[in-house]
């Protein structure tokens, strides 16, 4: 019975096992779907999908497989992204009396037909117009719009006028490739653990098992045993880019910072800031005041090579800021001469180091992608998302 559906789900990255599939068959046999299509949908979902992060993927597979059964319209991811713009100003500047009257006169069928047409035609983002699917305009589709009548496509309902929500992919926000909040960061950071009973500490922890064993062995005479405490030996050096193009990601970076500083399981943690690229000095605060800073050389010589280094930055700057001799020239003629030299110094000193990037590689304009690519050859680079962070942690722990 629709065995293809299983393979469709697996092809789309849902790890459905045979056990789960057989449970579904058993449940169908017992009539748990309640002979309704909706019931069937929920039955499938609660047996086959085990994380809310996969609900969205499941929904799309389900739609694809059972598409002859009319459900909601599929709205492309691209379109949903254009519409996800809570930042666009929330005002009535685009109000158009004439358009409002015109829209009031349209019937639901007409609007739905128009939406279909537009979805065929539209190929870019629109905010504040009256024709295309977009936000904050007088058009009858999109979201946060001002038209008295229309179809809401994505976004949070704000004006409550849309009479239909098309393709409300409710669980889209849970997808794991989304950027993340503090809690998720913390969970990912917990992976950064290396326990060792061999730390140089006196044996202070009471060892119950061996005490009992030894006491029993010596015929009931109490023999107390102690062991060395097990401790996380991971020491972390966090270097964060601050200011300039990084302001855009400030919330994300502050979430990472909070998560790192909150997870108290590291043996030691140091945080420094830099701007664009690491030069001769590292700063103690994101305000980059030189009176509150240390030299990069000091860090390199005082923190041993077993520290794990996480650099956070968008790796996008003017090429001369990375390669030119104006910044980052150390007094020593044999020392580092530019930003890249400093980065290489760090890389050589700390075998476990990664670069987390909140921004994706700019795919147009060689100007910005040049430094991005150069830095990616020095450090293993990961996106600052749940999956990226997890991958990065794995990299840091690999020996």
């Amino acid at each position: 019975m629709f065995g293809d559906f299983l393979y469709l789900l697996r092809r789309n990255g849902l790890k459905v096992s045979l056990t789960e599939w057989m449970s579904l068959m058993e449940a169908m046999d017992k009539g748990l779907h309640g002979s309704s299509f909706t019931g069937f949908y929920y039955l499938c979902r609660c047996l086959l999908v085990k994380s809310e992060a996969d609900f969205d993927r499941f929904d799309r597979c389900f739609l694809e497989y059972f598409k002859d059964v009319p459900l909601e319209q599929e709205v492309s991811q691209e379109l949903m992204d254009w519409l996800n713009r809570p930042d666009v100003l929330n005002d009535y500047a685009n109000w158009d009396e004439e358009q409002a009257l015109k829209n009031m006169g349209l019937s639901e069928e007409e609007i739905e037909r128009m939406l279909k047409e537009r979805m065929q035609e539209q190929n870019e983002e629109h905010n504040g117009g009256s024709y295309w699917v977009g936000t904050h305009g007088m058009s009858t589709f999109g979201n946060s719009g001002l038209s008295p009548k229309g179809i809401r496509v994505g976004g949070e309902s704000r004006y409550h006028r849309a009479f239909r929500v098309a393709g409300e992919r409710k669980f889209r926000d849970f997808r794991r490739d989304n950027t993340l909040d503090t809690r998720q960061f913390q969970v990912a950071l917990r992976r950064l653990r290396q326990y060792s009973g061999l730390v140089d500490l006196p044996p202070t922890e009471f060892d119950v098992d061996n005490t009992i064993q030894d006491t029993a062995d010596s015929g009931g005479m109490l023999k107390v045993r102690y062991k060395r405490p097990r401790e996380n030996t991971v020491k972390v050096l966090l270097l964060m880019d601050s200011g300039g193009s990084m302001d855009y990601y400030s919330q994300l970076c502050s979430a990472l910072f909070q998560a790192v500083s909150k997870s108290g399981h590291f043996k030691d943690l140091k945080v420094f800031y830099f701007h664009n690229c690491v030069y001769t000095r590292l700063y103690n605060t994101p305000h980059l005041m030189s009176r509150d800073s240390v030299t990069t050389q000091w860090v390199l010589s005082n923190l041993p090579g077993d520290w794990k280094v996480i650099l956070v930055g968008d790796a996008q700057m003017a090429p001369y800021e990375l390669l030119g001799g104006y910044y980052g020239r150390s007094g020593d003629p044999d020392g580092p001469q530019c930003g890249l030299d400093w980065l290489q110094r760090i890389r050589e000193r700390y075998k476990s180091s990664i670069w987390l990037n909140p921004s994706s590689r700019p795919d147009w304009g060689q100007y910005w992608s040049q430094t991005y690519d150069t830095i990616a050859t020095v450090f293993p680079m990961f996106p600052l998302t749940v999956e990226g962070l997890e991958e990065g942690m794995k990299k840091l722990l690999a020996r």
Partner: protein
Amino acid sequence: MDEFRGSQNYVADPELLRAVNIAMVLQKPLLIKGEPGTGKTMLAEAIAQALNKKLIIWNIKSTTKAQDGLYVYDVVQRLYDSQFGGQGVDDIAKYVKLGKLGEAFTADEQVILLIDEIDKADLEFPNDLLWELDRMEFHIPETKETITAKHRPVVIITSNAEKELPDAFLRRCVFHYIEFPDKELMADIVRVHFPDLDEKLLTQVLEAFYKIRQLPQIKKKPSTSEIIDWIRALQHGGVDPKRVVKEVPYLGVLLKKNEDMDALRRAWR
């Protein structure tokens, strides 16, 4: 067959009821996830009440081991007794105490077992319980005894998604994600807690509450338990319903972070 239809004190949406009944018929553990404050723990209580069964709660902490749920063999007590010549030291069974899972298995009638916040424990914890939850039995080597469930308990597991649960464990569960209730469902929930609440106040409260939740700037969104506390505060203070949306009195009950309060003030100025 028992069927769960919600209870007097617990309002559940139909999807949740469906998941509960699927789990009961298939005799699989039901894994419940959801935002804090969506009533995950309350659900087990409601099921126990509705089906008139005993509820056994196993609260998981970061130090909990799977073994603790099965049984504990009190070696130290036995050693102590043996040194001072206590009675019945030969009887190992005297020193074996059943944990919550063991208690549920040996109960004389079917019980509801709630394993609360399973993600708090160590990463390996769920894996250690696979066999026990699958077969509903475990062996005690000390007494050479096998404890088998007399009646398979209905197992409800809650998780706050702090840790990923292992795949092998997930495969054996029925999964349900409790979504945050929408306005209508929330109104029902509030009415259960405050049967004679003024309708005008309720409408105003809900409007203000969802307006706050919708703000993208708010980091810790208020949840069901907060709205209930808030209504209690509003009732106690005798606040005029007209003021609720405009002034949001007792804001501290809803928002617990300074940044969030500032964000709200900025957004509504």
